[in-house]
């Protein structure tokens, strides 16, 4: 396993997605309002769209009809093509977490630099 530096932390805007590369692999970086950084493979497993062209949004928490609370600490990337949502933490699709998943990569921030670990 190796860690590679992909960008400076300050290059990541809160609430925006950033496309990056590790060797020949495209990844998408996401910085959440609480300062965490996540990395997913930048390819939707549904139809191959680039997730970095999608939206970074709070996930919904809900327990009943008409309950649309926005989670404070859970975020998703919504695919730009059909709206599939992927959890930043593990890349699982919220609509079908057992069968649809995008690869998630560990991220570290050291000395203002963002490092992504590729297994």
């Amino acid at each position, binding site marked *: 396993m190796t860690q590679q530096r992909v960008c400076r932390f300050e290059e990541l805007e809160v609430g925006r997605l950033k496309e990056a590369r590790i060797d020949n692999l495209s990844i998408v970086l996401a910085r959440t309002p609480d300062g965490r950084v996540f990395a997913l493979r930048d390819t939707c497993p549904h139809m191959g769209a680039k997730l970095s062209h999608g939206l970074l949004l709070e996930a919904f928490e809900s327990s*009943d009809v008409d309950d649309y609370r926005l989670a404070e600490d859970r975020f998703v990337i919504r695919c730009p093509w*059909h709206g599939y*949502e992927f959890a930043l933490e593990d890349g699982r699709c*919220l609509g079908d977490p057992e069968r649809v998943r995008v690869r998630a990569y560990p991220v570290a921030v050291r000395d203002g630099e963002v490092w992504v670990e590729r297994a």
Partner: protein
Amino acid sequence: MGVAEDTTLLIDTDVHESPPQGRGMKDLIPYFDPHWQRYIKGVGGEWQGHGTSSTYITPLPPYGNRADWNVNGERAGSTVEEMQKQLFEGEGVSIAILGGPNFSPSGLVTDPEFATALASAYNDYEIENWLDKDERLRGSVHVAAQVPEAAAREIDRVGAHPQIVQVLLPLATDKQWGDPIYRPIWEAALRNDLVLSFHHTNRTQTTLGWPRYFIEWHTMAAPQAAQNQVLSLICSGTFDRYPELKVVMLEGGVTWVHWLIWRLDQQYRELRQNIPWVKRLPSEHIRDNVRVATQPMTEVTTSEFVKLIEMTDTARCYVFATDYPHYDADTPRNVLPRSLPPELLRRIRYQNALETFPRLANLAN
């Protein structure tokens, strides 16, 4: 499909009994409170009847029944004795679940108090004139769902009868069945160990309204409405809130289920954020909570039918039905051939029903 005889348990989930005097409901007069009796008798006021939105020319008068079942011109399904002879002896049915004559108090658009009284009167009529006369008969609680609290009280009132197994509701209503206003009914059904069964009435339209001809309505209205209502129940989180609730869709055909599974799972993956209270794939809810009566069975070969079931993992979803005594009733020797895989045949004949209806579970012994 071929001809075969089978003597194992056969549970018929869609059987129509009819009060002999027909849709005027005069047979129910003894079961109404006196003030409501007046409006059936036409004394001091008059109920104008169920109303009919469907005015189609239908193929087999009188009554829309299979002609050879209308013995001596009498309405088939109007006496226990004829039903015993034609359904139990003639078709080999072991247990018949009665759903009434496709009247529905829930479909009455006026006089909700009368609709509630009509449901109660029918339930008492059904118990005394049918269920008490043959232990092989099972029955429905009819309710006026537009008054949910009263409907729940009616379920509690008659739901304890040991032969009552379901709450019967119309496929189409002003508010779709996923609406939370109906929760008192679902909760009453659950606490009485009853399932919810849905059947079309003459008020069930296609999504485009009333088509010009009966063939169009008969092709499309029930399967469309069944899909819409399953969709509504799932998307409003009914099965997330009530995971033990079972619903049975009657007389809408069988092969819409596969299309709905594919389409709705696809849409859920894309649009889950629209209904975040739904926590499982719709297909999982369908497999666990939705049952579909086989009549009218799609006329495909046995192997084609089996392939469809295998493609969608829906072997648990089908329960047998004849739709006795209507003209297009299915006869088991034709739609349940021995060429079906034995496990699937067993499931459709009785096992799925035993697992669906808590009140039938004792038949497994």
